[in-house]
């Protein structure tokens, strides 16, 4: 019996280590790309490591980058656990940020803490709306949520471009010929407290606290149970009396809400204004996509998503440094990102294989041949974590 527990513990450890091996493999392929670009990969990755963890300031930058990834990732944990794919993080961040920023621009004579709380709330609501629409369309019209969320991203970008050039433009910019599409800066009183002299802000702490709350939501509340039940098996959930359509809407709505909050925190903690270069990534830094990667990396577990998003934050901050030191095109980071996902999603093969073997072993030990392993076709759909 003791031996069994020991094996269990070992295989858990291997499960956790798999994504890390996958990342190393991705960096290995990245090294080949660097060599092809005539760059010494050791020098490049050295710069990356130093950029991410070299000083207190760089660690703070890593955490600043990790904050939106973690928040988006928490939303992804909720939706993917409910078997709903949310690729609309970018758009949800933008809409949340727009609504939140507007609060800071309008209520300039209210106390700071009140406006911050209001702005966070509006960010949450804005993201919830932008996630809820695809959720509603999926539940009641059968519209594929992957595509509708991607389309909602594109719509949000144009909405941002419109608002920042039109109604929300900085009054002082409106008079200039340059007309830079940006809002006015937020008042000092409305900015999230920072850990001086770095840019690390309260938003990171908030995100970590929320990670624990999402864990409670998913595993200790009825709502979380329902969402997961629908994610595992919608037919069984329906027979058990769960309103499947409502859970689908809620899963996407909550998922969007966390992304919207990420957008609001990005404005109130880091940028202090909204500015657009015409693309989504100009504002989000692709956190809406990278948060998905972070969540998958954390095996769709809110707590696991915390270290995962810090790792990805480090990758992003470090890549910036690498780009400056060894002079490679900045887009290399996008490719590296893709490689990491490729290897992480591939490594899942070995995890599932071992899981199957474990289940077979367990059923053999009990002498019970009726307990077949889950159909892998269903487990692999979105059920990446265990």
């Amino acid at each position, binding site marked *: 019996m003791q031996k069994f527990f020991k094996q269990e513990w070992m295989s858990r450890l291997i499960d956790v280590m798999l994504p890390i091996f996958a990342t190393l493999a991705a960096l290995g392929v990245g090294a080949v790309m660097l060599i092809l670009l005539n760059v010494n990969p050791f020098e490049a990755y050295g710069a990356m490591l130093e950029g991410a963890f070299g000083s207190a300031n760089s660690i703070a930058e890593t955490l600043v980058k990790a904050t939106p990834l973690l928040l988006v990732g928490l939303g992804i944990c909720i939706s993917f656990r409910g078997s709903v794919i949310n690729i609309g993080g970018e758009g949800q961040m933008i809409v949340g940020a727009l609504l939140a920023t507007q609060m800071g621009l309008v209520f300039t004579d209210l106390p700071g803490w009140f406006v911050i709380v209001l702005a966070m709330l509006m960010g949450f609501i804005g993201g919830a709306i932008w996630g809820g629409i695809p959720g509603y369309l999926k539940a009641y019209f059968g519209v594929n949520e992957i595509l509708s969320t991607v389309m909602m991203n*594109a719509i949000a970008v144009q909405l941002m471009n419109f608002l920042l050039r039109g109604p929300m433009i900085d009054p002082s910019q409106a008079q200039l010929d340059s007309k830079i599409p940006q809002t006015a800066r937020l008042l000092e009183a409305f900015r999230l407290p920072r850990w001086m002299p770095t840019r690390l802000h309260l938003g990171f702490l908030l995100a970590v606290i929320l990670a624990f709350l999402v864990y409670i939501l998913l595993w200790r509340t009825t709502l979380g149970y329902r969402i997961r039940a629908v994610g595992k098996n919608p037919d069984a959930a329906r027979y058990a009396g769960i309103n499947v359509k409502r859970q689908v809407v809620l899963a996407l709505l909550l998922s969007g809400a966390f992304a919207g909050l990420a957008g609001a925190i990005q404005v109130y903690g880091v940028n202090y204004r909204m500015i657009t270069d015409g693309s989504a990534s100009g504002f989000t830094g692709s956190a809406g996509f990278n948060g998905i990667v972070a969540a998958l990396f954390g095996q769709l577990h809110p707590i696991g998503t915390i270290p995962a998003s810090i790792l990805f934050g480090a990758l992003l901050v470090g890549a910036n440094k690498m780009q400056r030191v060894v002079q490679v095109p900045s887009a290399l980071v996008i490719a590296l990102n*893709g490689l990491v996902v490729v290897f992480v999603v591939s490594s899942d093969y070995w995890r599932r294989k071992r899981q199957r073997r474990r289940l077979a072993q367990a059923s053999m030990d009990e002498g019970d041949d009726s307990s077949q392993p889950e159909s892998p*076709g269903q487990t692999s759909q979105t059920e990446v974590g265990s």
Partner: protein
Amino acid sequence: MDLIIILQAGVASGTVLLFATIGEIFAERSGVMNLGVEGMMLLGAMSAFSVAVSTGNPWLGLLVAMLAAGLLSQIHAFITITLQADQVVSGLALTFLGTGISLVLGEGLSKAGAISLLPNFSIPLLTKIPLIGPIFFTNQSIMVYIGYLFVPLSWYYINRTRPGMHLRAVGEHPAAADTLGINVYGTRYFYVFVGGVLAGLAGATISLAISPGWFSELTTAGQGWIAVGLVIFAQWDPVRAMFGSYAFGALRRLILDIQGPLTLFGFSNPFYYNPYWGFFLQMLPYAFTIIVLVIGSREAVRKRLGAPAALGLPYIRGERGL
């Protein structure tokens, strides 16, 4: 704001969507959804343009684009078919990867000067047909004409030939196909490759014919995603894909043209006087995609049509289920 010109240009830019959509139809009919179309198109557009710049031969560029995107698609094939991983995540990764590689290799390419492009020509006699002639057969790129031939050919291939039947069998019921001796894995690898090749062709059609040049991500500007959406609207049928593609192409052109004139239907043109209103117009293709998806999905439910039954599911020999 000449309707004929809008439709003519719509058919041209719709050809891009047409290739990408039909490519994705092939892949999905075999049971593999590839969300990496955008990345593959971008890689196609970049490699086509860069080869055309360095060799001066656009045809060589076209070939390289198809091969490059086809090779990229094989990463997705390996991950989803052999390693049986989640198709959605892998497809997303492919978009990142394709975009990243294209932007790295395409750096500085946007400054390349004029190159020789794929030829435009008119079809004699057919141009004389009223309405149809000027829209479809006058001064179009050769890729547009290839598109016309391509639609009926792919319909015939999928629905009336033996390999097409195997393709559908693998997508609908891989276990049954397997017992009949059809190589499920090989078939899926092949049609994912076909999807990649056609996405590359679509990308090359942009950079060498329809709107020549390399404008980094804006070269494709999300058309790969629209193509994936059109597959659902098209109910996995090439002929419906053609209508959808051309309609979207025309919409894109209309959005450009509507911002030009001072007056619109006798009123002063709000999009001309407030240029930032144009951003609302730019939302339209995406909003329409959602509407099209709503219509397509409802129709699918009503007519009991739908996605290939095994779409998105990995096939594992000897396991229960599809």
